[in-house]
């Protein structure tokens, strides 16, 4: 994991592994938690196998649904692991997803209290990040940061 780009998350969920797995792999269940309320989620495609499609849409008003995720599963091990990416879309076309390309690995481990649920999300180094750095406010924030660094490091 690259700490500047990736994130890791771990949680013990007090529910059997099969229940957590089903919440992920059954479209009707996934739709109930994937997107925060009051937005509505519609699971268009959930083909949980390597190369399978993962397509969700969202709606503010329950009427008009707009694209949310158009992704592709990379690896699936029943009850244990799901890996998907939005860098390749559901029809296997290379994609430039906004705001950022990612590969998410979700693992479901057995735990005495239920499920050891872990997520690792790896992000591409988005060009936009580079662009932001390129904006380099050398004459603004950059200067201030340099001065501050010089001050705390005791240099002049």
């Amino acid at each position: 994991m690259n700490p500047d780009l990736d994130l890791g998350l771990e949680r013990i969920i007090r529910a059997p592994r099969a229940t957590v797995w089903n919440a992920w792999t059954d479209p009707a269940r996934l739709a109930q938690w994937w997107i925060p309320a009051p937005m509505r989620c519609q699971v268009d495609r959930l083909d949980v196998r390597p190369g399978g499609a993962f397509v969700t849409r969202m709606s503010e008003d329950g009427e008009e649904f707009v694209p949310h995720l158009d992704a592709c599963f990379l690896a699936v091990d029943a009850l244990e692991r799901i890996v998907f990416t939005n860098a390749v879309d559901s029809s296997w076309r290379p994609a430039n997803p906004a705001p950022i390309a990612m590969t998410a690995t979700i693992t479901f481990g057995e735990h005495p209290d239920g499920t050891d649920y872990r997520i690792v999300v790896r992000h591409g180094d988005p060009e936009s990040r580079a662009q932001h750095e390129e904006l380099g406010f050398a004459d603004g924030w950059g200067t201030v940061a340099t001065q501050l660094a010089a001050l705390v490091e005791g240099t002049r």
Partner: protein
Amino acid sequence: MAQYSAQLDGVFVALADPTRRAVVRRLGRGPMSVGDLASEFPMTLPSFMKHVRTLESNGLIRTVKSGRVRTCVLRRERLAVVDDWLAEQRRIWEERTDRLEQFVTGEDNS
């Protein structure tokens, strides 16, 4: 949250163009009139105005009209949004995990 995400998308869209990035960089040095800004870019004024409108509609700049002169001002606070993208991604996944947890430990959904 949705609004924030739309804001972030807008910022990325606005910064996805070299002319617009150059305008933002230039305005980082201080406010400037549209006319003076435009003279620094090799394009027609209407084309340049389109970029200015994109920057303004995505909240990266403000424009203030005084008489016949329109001045552009950088909105630095909006750029901070980009800095926070990783924190934002983390928040999305944390909250998503909260909802999953509530869903599977809540009502019987087997």
